[in-house]
Structures are given as C-alpha cells and as structure tokens.
C-alpha cells in the first residue's frame, strides 16, 4: 500500500505536505532544546551546529516515515 501524505488546506490554499512536516519538526526541535540544554549537549561535540542540524533532519525524516 502506498504512503498517503496528509494535506493541509488553509483558506482554500493547498499547502504541500513537506511544509507541514517541516514546521512540526521545527516545533518538536524547539521543544527538545531545553532538554539538550539540561544535559550540556553542546559540550559533547566538536561542532554542535552540525549535530543539531542532523537532529532536526532525523526528526523530519521520522515524521515523514511514520505519518
């Protein structure tokens, strides 16, 4: 069975499913930040920005696969 992507319609405008995924992933990522702050996440890595970008991409990919 093929994967069905949720479609969002705002005021008659069809919003691409990817945009929905991207914004939900951004929300989850922002919620995760205080937790990462508590565990001193940035101290563990040489280049925290790359790791944070990877985490965002992983959340995005997980959302696309699961929903």
């Amino acid at each position: 069975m093929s994967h069905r992507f949720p479609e969002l319609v705002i005021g008659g405008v069809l919003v691409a499913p990817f945009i929905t995924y991207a914004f939900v992933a951004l929300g989850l990522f922002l919620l995760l930040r205080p937790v990462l702050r508590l565990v001193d996440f940035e101290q563990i890595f040489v280049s925290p920005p790359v790791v944070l970008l990877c985490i965002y991409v992983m959340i995005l990919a997980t959302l696309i696969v699961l929903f």
Partner: protein
Amino acid sequence: MKGQRGPVKAVFAGAPQLAPRDRLYGQRRFFGIAFSSWAFALRIWIATVLALYVAFWLQLQNAYSAAVCVAILALPTRGQAFDKALYRTGGTVVGAVAALVIAGLFNEVRDLFIIAFAAWMAVCGYVASFLDGDRAYGAVLSGFTAAIIAFANIDAPQQTFLISLDRCAVILVGVLAIMIVNDLLGAPDVLSRFSKKLEETQRRIVAFAQRVVVEKKMDPAILGDLLENVVGFRTDIAVLPTESIAGWCRAEAAKIAVVAMARQISAIRIFGAVLQEDRAGSADQLDDLAHEFYEALQDEEQELVANDGDTCNPSLIAANAMQLFLRQRRRAASSFENVRTGGRVQAGPKLPRVFTHEAARRNALRLFIAMLGGSALLVYSGWPSVSNALVMLAAITAISVTAPNPQAFATNALISMLLAVTLVGVTEFLVLDGADSFPILAFGLAPAVVGASLLAASGHRIFGPVGTLTLVFMPLLFLITNPANYDPTIFLNSATLNVISVIMLFLIVKVVLPTSDDRKRFWLVRSMHREFRDALTGTPIARSLDELIFRDLDRESQLNALQPVGKDGVKRGSLALGWAELTSAAWGARLALAGLDPEVARNGRVALAETDPARLTGAAAQLLSQGNAGGNRSEELRSAAAALAWLARLIERHPADFALLNKGSWR
C-alpha cells in the same frame, strides 16, 4: 607580509570583522587575503548557488530573490546570520500581510494606494528609529516588503496573494540555504570573538584605572574609546541567544558583565575627577587612598580598607568610587566564566539605548515625503517598468533610516550600484554569454560573488559596506530566470532605473529633512534635561541603577560620536558631556536615597529637589554620621552620603553648566 602587494595589502590587511578559527585557518593568507575571508566568500557563493538551484527546482517566480536573501544574510558569523534571518522572515510575513491589506483597501484609487503605502513606510520607519541592529532592519523590511509585493503588481492586484506566498517561500529558501551552508561549513561563532573582546576590555579598564591613579588625570580619548567599546557589546549580545542552546544564559551573563564594566567606567570618572581637582587640603589622604587602591587593582580578591574619615570630604567620594570599582570588577569577572560555559544565571539587566522621538518623527516624515515624491516623479516620467525603480527606491530609502550615517550609506550605495552594474554586465554578456545550463551559471557567478564577498569581509571602512551592497545589488540587476534571458534591453533598462533610484536616494538624504549632528546633539541634550529633572523631582522610574548608568553611557557615546557643527559646536559638545556627568550624578543620588528608609532619606530628598549644594552636603554629612554609627545598613548610608556629596561637588564646581541644564535654556 610576503605575498601582499599594493592596494590588496591596504584593503585586506586587517580583515577585522572575521574572527579566524585559529585551529583551522591560523594567520595564513592566500594572495595576501586571510583564509577566513576566502572561507567566508566560498560559503556565500555555495549558498547563493544552492538557493538559486532550489528556487528554480520549486519553480518559484522570482528565484533571484533567494540569491538576494543570501546576500543580505552574508554576515561573518553564524549568530549574526541566524539573528538577521529571524527578523528577515518575520518582517517579510508582516510586510506581506500589509501589502494584502493595502492592495485590498485602496486598489481602486491609485493615489490613495500610494499615500497608504507611503504612510505604512513612515510607520515602519518610525518604529525602526526606536530599535537597533537586526530589529530595526526587520521593522523597515516590513515597510519595503509591502512595496516589493504591492507595487510590483500594481496593475494586477488579483495576483497579490499568490505573489505574497511566492515571496515568503523564496525568502525561506534563501534563509535555509545560508543557514545550512553556515552550519555545515563551520562558519565562526560570535561567542569566541565576543568572549575574548569582553575580557580584553575589562583588562583595559583596569589598566586605565591604574593610569588615572598614577597620573592623576584622565585621557578623554581612552575614556571615549572604552565607552564606545562597552556600549557596542550590546549588538553582539543581541545575537548570542540564537547562536547556541545555552545562548540565552550566555547573553544574560554578558549583560551583567557589560553593566559591571559600565559602572567601573563611571567610578573611574568620579575618583579621577577627585584625584585631579580636589587635592587642596586633602592631598596626603588622597595619596594614601590612591596607593591602597593601586595595590588592590593588582589582586582581584583584595578589598579596599579605606579610612575615609568621618566628614564629607573628597576622600569619602573617592573611596566610595574605588570600592564600587573593585566590587564591579569582581562582578564582571564572575560573569566571564558563565559567558564561556553557558552556565545557569538569573536574568540580567536590560541594556537600554537612548532614542529620541524627534529623530524618529523626522525619519518617518522623510520616508513619507520621499515615497510620495519618488512615486509621483517616476509615475509621471512615463518610463517603462518604473515599479522596479520604485521598489529599489523604497528599499534603500527605508534601510538608510537604520544607517548611523544616511549620507555615507547613500554614497556607498551609489558606488556599489555602479560596481554591480559593471560586474553583472561582464558576467552576463562576456562570461556566460548565452549559456543556459545551471553548472555554467554557477561557475560563471563565482568571480563576481567571491570578489564582492572578499570586499565585504575586508572590514575596510569603505570597501566593506560597498562589498556587502554590491552582493545584494548584483542579483537584482541580473534578474536570473529559468530559462535564462540574455536580452541586453532588459539589462540596460533595469540598470538605468536602479542607478536613477540610488541617485534619488542620494538627493533625498541631502535635501529632505537631513539631520545635522548639531540637531542630534540638541535632541540628546533635551532628553538629558528631561531626565535630570525627573531625577530631581522624584518622578517614578522602572529602571535599576545598572540600566540607568548604561543608558547614560550610551547617550554619552552618541554625543562623543557627533562632529562639532556651527560656530560654537566644540563648546556645545563639551557642555553636553559635562551635563551627561551631572545627569548620571543626579540619578546616582536619587537611587541611593531610594534604597534607604524614607525617614532617614527625607533630608536628602529635600536637598535633591532644591539642588542646593550646601543642603546636599549637609544631608550627606547626616547620612554619613548615621552610617558611621554602625548597624547593618551602614554601607548603604555611606554610599548615599558619597552620592549626595558628589552631586553637590559637581554643582558647586560647574554652576553655569548646572543652571543651563536645570532650566533647559542651552540655546
């Protein structure tokens, strides 16, 4: 250095804006230009190409706007680019909504449409005049985004909604491109450079204090430089929260460090003035005090055990200022560690700046007149595609409001536009010359984008801003489309209109309500007079002493930056600096009394309202005797006594300055 030659050496010698990542680049140079500058230029080129590719792939209408967005966010550090990106996205959304409202309400009547749009620009300019840095940019962006969307489609209002969506999408593409490239290619952080500069400034402040103690005089040039440095930290602190997860804690710790340094500077001026001018009668006592303070400056943990006597003499004022200095130095030092590690801290003080309503009103009126006049001129000229020129005029006039010196900005814009026309002409008709594949376009753009980025990264006073503006203007002139269009008529038309827009900006900032330095000084002094009266009369204020001192130093730094204008400009400038000291002293006395029991502080309050030096000294003596009697508040009582004595001393020594400031009759 070997490899540097002629003008290259002159322009790229310092590259001070870029903090090189020592481990990665060291101090190495390539063709006389720092590796960090090359890395910056490479990142901008890659981000430009990525943004264009994605915009073409998504078939967005104005794909070149993604490249413009990358150019606008071409800043040397991740934090700066991230912070500006947030305000750029927010400003674009607000501007898109405003465009929809203006187009919806006034589309039927063209004149009303233009008036409404000019009024919206004026509102945005007014708001931007009370903000600084990226916030001010976000405010003016809301104004000219409305122009980009509504004016560009003035003849097809039914397209406004679709164009708004397209504009937001293309901006998001540009923002994501630069952020991803910055993250993956290791753009430097603000933090490393900022942290070093913060600690270096603290060392300079201590060195300055030592020099004042030894020489018994203050060098105004060093003092002015320190002031500018401390006030300037505000811009870097604003971007820290966006840069890392612990950014908020770092920013709050940095605010504490900065206000602690501001208070140290304020303390140096007090004991410096006393050591220099009040030696008669108490020279030995002051020398002992200065010696003890000098010893304490060598060791961060050492306290000052000053015996400042039981009377309200200059030693009391100096000793209190020296104790305050040492306390604030310890406070700053304890914050540096938190800035580095991002450890948990309480919310720090705000760092308020001084903005005047008069300047904001003038900026708003200038934008309104410029938009109405510019629109009328271009509409009645009958040229084709004047909407493009209007959009450019709206954008650069709005941004000039946020520039510290609008006339210098207009000059830079003119030079940049001519340079961009040349670079785009060469790239489009000599380098690419009809090529239609994306890889060739990408490599064809490289020399122009990398060259302009290197200029932007040079940190040179003139070439730096010219490079940044050239980066922004190039995609606007190129109007890169898919499929590619190499029509020379379109290029010539676009280039001519854009050059005309910049010439109009040049004339506008010269002719339409230009603000002279003398006028700015007058507005700053008027705000100072109001605050001086507020301090004396007990008008309630919701700011702490930390915030008030930072604001006073900011005002003083703004006054320092103004050039003497007119016959007695120099005299007015020095008068204004004297008044700044009086205003700070009045607030110091007022807030010191506010911390005491109302009964104890009553005499002090009355003396403050009357501003009689004899009564102020009397009230100070009374507080001092209560402080010397012991008790758990003796420290505060002695501080309040010193604050009143300092104000009394300033009024006594500069009665003419005081009378002018108090009455507000400086003109």
